[in-house]
């Protein structure tokens, strides 16, 4: 085909604009997160001592860090879906810094005694299981929405999706999880989120080519 003919063809059928990728991704995630919340309420629900826990320092800190990570990862995903857009990835360091600060605070305030007990917690296996499970619906929704984007780095975009969805899963599971120590969060939540991010990397490379 001659390039001139292609240009003529394109010029003739130009016109309607698809909605911006942020809107599509936002809508898809509204649906995905709703499903995840429903699943969480059906399977686990908030922990029994929720009313007491919310007044301790560590329980809300854990939830804030997970929620913050999700909020910071969202614009990273939408920027990666636009060719040539600058990606606000450095803000993710805020979440890492908050977690590191919480870890230091735990070691200083609660003490080094019993630190390994707090790190291994009561139920690391259920953490590693449920975070990916609650991440699944937002994860699928994200990839459906991002097929309309144009990520020039599909693997990285998928990994960012995994980070976002892992944080959503971490937030939901965190509402139930009896382990609040930042030492536990930094090891097990991070590991679970990293698994979701790795899955996102692979799915991204396969599904986000255009």
């Amino acid at each position: 085909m001659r390039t001139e003919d292609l240009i003529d063809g394109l010029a003739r059928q130009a016109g309607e604009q698809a909605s911006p990728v942020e809107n599509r991704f936002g809508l898809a995630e509204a649906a995905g997160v709703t499903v995840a919340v429903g699943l969480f309420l059906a399977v686990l629900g908030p922990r029994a001592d929720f009313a007491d826990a919310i007044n301790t320092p560590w329980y809300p800190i854990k939830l804030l860090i997970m929620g913050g990570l999700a909020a910071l990862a969202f614009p990273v995903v939408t920027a990666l879906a636009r060719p040539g857009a600058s990606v606000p990835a450095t803000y993710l360091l805020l979440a890492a810094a908050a977690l590191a600060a919480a870890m230091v605070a735990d070691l200083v305030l609660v003490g080094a005694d019993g630190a390994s007990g707090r790190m291994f917690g009561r139920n690391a296996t259920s953490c590693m299981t449920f975070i990916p499970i609650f991440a699944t619906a937002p994860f699928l929704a994200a990839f459906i929405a991002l097929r309309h984007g144009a990520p020039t780095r599909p693997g990285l975009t998928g990994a960012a999706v995994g980070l976002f969805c892992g944080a959503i899963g971490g937030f939901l599971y965190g509402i139930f999880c009896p382990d609040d120590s930042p030492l536990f969060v930094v090891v097990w939540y991070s590991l679970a989120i990293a698994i979701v991010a790795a899955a996102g990397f692979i799915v991204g490379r396969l599904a986000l080519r255009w």
Partner: protein
Amino acid sequence: MLLDELSRFIRQIARRSAANAQLSGADVEDIVQETLLAIHLKSHTWNENELLGPWVRAITRYKSIDILRRRGGRLHVPIDDYSEELAADSDETQLPARDIIRMATILPERQKSIVVAMFVDGLSTGEAAARFAMTEGAVRVNVHRALAALAKKFGDKG
């Protein structure tokens, strides 16, 4: 028309990738066509508030690599091709001056002179405001309108 301008800009980038990988002129045209098609299909991923150049360039790069890979996996895109792109997140990488001037001819006089002053002569918003005796806000509004007009032209037939 604008798509012609655009295809010339794309061809320049594609030629460089193709020369590095020893591809033929037909491959260059393949890259140009695939990129034009992608620009058409993915036009909603361009943010009107951002420069058109980096967006087109990123898509061209992506499609170039795609085609190079399909031509037998000889992927020799030298790093110095990317040094530009790595630095491109901030403000550089506009269309070549000649093309900007030509594209700007569709704009009203005032917008045209502001676009040329800022994107060809490289004036900052503040300097442009001083030159045209207007506020920085007014300069920004003009640039935004100019880009919107170019976007409309570019989505429409030129």
